[in-house]
Every structure is written in C-alpha cells, then in structure tokens.
C-alpha cells in the first residue's frame, strides 16, 4: 500500500515517472478517461480548500472515477469528536483512495497508519502539501523543459510557507540548483531547513529582503501569500502582509524567460496587471495540478496504462 504523505515519499525516479505520466495525460487526456471507472476517491477536507478539493475531484472525474467526501470539519464526524484513525477506517470501507486536508500537522500520517486504502496528504497545517509540490515540479518541467540547473527565487512568507519548504526539499535532488530566498527578516526560512538540508547538501543559496536586486538572477520566481491563518497574532500579520508586491515595473528587471509561479490563492502580492505577461505561469500551474493529481491517483492505485 502506497501513500503520499511527504513530498519525499517518492524517490527521484518515481517522481520522474510520475511527471512523465502526467505529461502524457496532459497531451492525450482521452487515453486515460476511463482508467478509474468504478473507482471512488474520498475527499476528506477538515478545513475548506476549494481549489485543492476541486482539483482532486476534477482529476478523479477526468479518469472516469467518482468522488465523495466532505469539505469542512463541521460536516464530518470530527465535529462529534471522532478520531482521524476511526474516520479513515470507515472511509476505507467506502472508497478506493482518499485525499485528506487537515488543519493539524501529521493528521494524514495518522490516517495512513490505520488505512487500508492509499492516503494522499492534501495539506496538513503549515507542514506538507506534496501534491502542490508535484504540481510545481510538473509546471517547471513542462514549461522549462528540465528541472536541473535552475536558480529559483522564493519570495514572501518563507517561514510558514509549506509549499516553499516542500519545493526546496524536492529541488535539491536536481543538480546545480540555486536558491535566492527573499523575505522580511521575520518570515525567513526556518534555520533547520538551512542546517539540515541546504548546508548538508552544499546547495548554494542567498537570503535577501530586496526583490528588485534578486529578480535579474532568477529562472523561476515562486511568490507566496502571507497567510493570515498561520499567525497567532493579527498585528504581525498586518505588519508583514504587504512587504512584497510583484508588479509590471518589477517584471522589467526579470529575464525574458523567467517564470512566475504561485500556489494561489493570491491576495495582492502579484498585481493583476502582470496576469497577461507570458512569464506569469500561475494559472497554467493550477491547470497542471489536475494532471499531476491524475498521475498520482493512477500511480497509487497501481493502475497500469499503455
């Protein structure tokens, strides 16, 4: 039984296979439109995330499968005090695979320990969001043509931004990757990520609070939103939320082929006036998310395709 709880649960070769499969689905979706006929995906969303949930549901429907589930803890038995372990034991009777979103970190791991169906972590608090990472990798691979030799700038909330941590962990597996970490001092990347990953693997990185200076160096700019729900103190949130705003003027400093990615939703950190810039890839990224999830569902269900 395979689960996807952390982005590093898949080996580099497995990631490559999965991305190749996703690209094949992207180019020939009709080939895959009945692969999951008769299969059911349960979406267990203990906190609302319309985008991620619909992306999973679209993925399963595109494969010919069906979906069931709930979209907030209020509409689940968690509101009656049921444990994650008991919920997943029951859901295992109803579905073939499940995607779980939970505000508490580690909840999908607990589910995987008691599940008889594959569990996909669809985001656990500020911890992991592996299908976003697969989405990001697929977007970069498809639009850049390769995953190695890239200078990637991460901008915004690098402290609580789980998508940032996960993508850093995923990208260090590819040779000649460099990082530029752009954030206010209060939202810098956690020390453990530097000490236990970047320093250990000798990955070059620089930290700055100046987006304009960093822009000309970048092949990828990964923008993030300062997330209100990650702060216990509203004053800190208000003070930091508008630190970086990417607009038309700043984009003039970037390379012609730099890609702007964002896990979405954005608030105001990317001005809408660059949405038509060909380098703005965040809406394409959301589209790739469906194909990454389709490839993942097929892989975890062990469905072979010709």
């Amino acid at each position, binding site marked *: 039984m395979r689960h996807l709880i952390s982005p590093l649960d898949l080996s580099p070769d497995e990631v490559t296979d999965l991305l190749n499969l996703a690209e094949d689905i992207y180019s020939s979706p009709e080939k895959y439109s009945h692969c999951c006929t008769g299969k059911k995906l349960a979406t267990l969303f203990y906190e609302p995330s319309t985008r991620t949930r619909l992306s999973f549901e679209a993925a399963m429907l595109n494969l010919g499968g069906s979906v069931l589930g709930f979209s907030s803890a209020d509409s689940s038995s968690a509101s009656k005090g049921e*444990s*994650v*372990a008991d919920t997943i034991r029951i859901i295992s009777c109803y579905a073939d695979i499940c995607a779980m979103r*939970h*505000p*508490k*970190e*580690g*909840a999908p*791991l*607990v589910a995987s320990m008691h599940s008889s169906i594959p569990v996909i972590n669809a985001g*656990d*608090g*500020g*911890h992991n969001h592996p299908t976003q990472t697969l989405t990001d990798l697929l977007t970069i691979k498809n639009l850049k043509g390769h995953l190695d030799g890239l200078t990637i700038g991460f901008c915004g909330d690098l402290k609580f931004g789980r998508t940032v941590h996960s993508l850093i962990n995923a990208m260090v597996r590819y040779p000649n990757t460099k990082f530029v970490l752009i954030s206010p001092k209060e939202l810098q990347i956690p020390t*453990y990520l530097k*000490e*236990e990953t970047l320093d250990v693997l000798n990955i070059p990185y620089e930290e700055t609070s100046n987006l304009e200076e960093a822009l000309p160096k970048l092949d990828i700019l990964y923008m993030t939103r300062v997330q209100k729900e990650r702060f216990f103190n509203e004053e800190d949130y208000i003070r930091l939320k508008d630190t970086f705003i990417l607009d038309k003027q700043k984009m003039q400093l970037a390379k012609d082929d730099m890609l702007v990615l964002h896990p979405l939703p954005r608030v105001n950190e990317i001005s809408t006036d660059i949405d038509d810039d060909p380098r703005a890839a965040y809406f394409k990224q959301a589209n790739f998310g469906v194909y990454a999830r389709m490839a993942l569902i097929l892989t975890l269900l062990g469905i072979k395709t010709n």
Partner: protein
Amino acid sequence: MLNIGGIQNGVVMDHIVAGCAMDIYHYLELDKSDATVAIIKNAKSNVMGKKDIIKIEGYTDFDFDVLGVIDPNITINIIKEGVIAEKRKLNLPERVTNIIRCKNPRCITSIEQELPHRFKLTNRAKGVYRCEYCEQQFKRG
C-alpha cells in the same frame, strides 16, 4: 554547602541542566522505585554555572539512553563499592515513544490525546529529535 554522603553501589547522574532533575526522576519512574534517591538541585558547577545531580543507591538497571533524548550532556557514573566503576556513554536511540511530548499547538497530537508521542532522531551530532507527525524539533529544558 550542602553535603550528601557518597554512595556504595548505584548511579550518579551528573551535569543535569539545572531544574531538570525532577523530569528525569519521573522519566526513570524513580517515584515508583524503592531505591534510595538523592536529588541535588542548583549545585555549583564551574562549566554550567549551576546543575542538578541525582544519586541512586542500590540500583543501576535503568534505560539510560532515554536520558540522552532529554539531555545528551548528562554524565552517568556507575558506582561499585564506593568508587566509579564505569562511566556510561549515552547512545541516542533512533526512535522514542512517549518519552518526550510534542509541544507544537498545530500538531495532531495536540487534539488527539490518545496518540503516542513518537520522535525520531534527525541529527545525531546535535542530538536533534523531531516529532514524527509534525516534524517539529523537540526543545530541551
């Protein structure tokens, strides 16, 4: 200066971070033991400023490695017939369950009380343990 007599056969745990002796007392379940135990709090230390010490008479069969999880700098002296017979080095276990607790309010263990608190060693040189669920580092002291 407080004087506590030497022990004949037993264990002296030295260089405990000041204030942590009672944690260790409970981890080793000394409250359930009938061994003679002396807890010295805030003893003067040239290196640490102040430290705690635990002396146990008549019993040496503890899982000392667990102490490394709590504080890897503790020194363990096994005493036989009034002299130090062995200085025990602490080996950090790869995984521990219900020895230390995750304090991350965002961790699933904060709302599901029956879950075991499981930690894994992620950096042996620095003695770093992380919660297996949320990966938050265990902070000592």
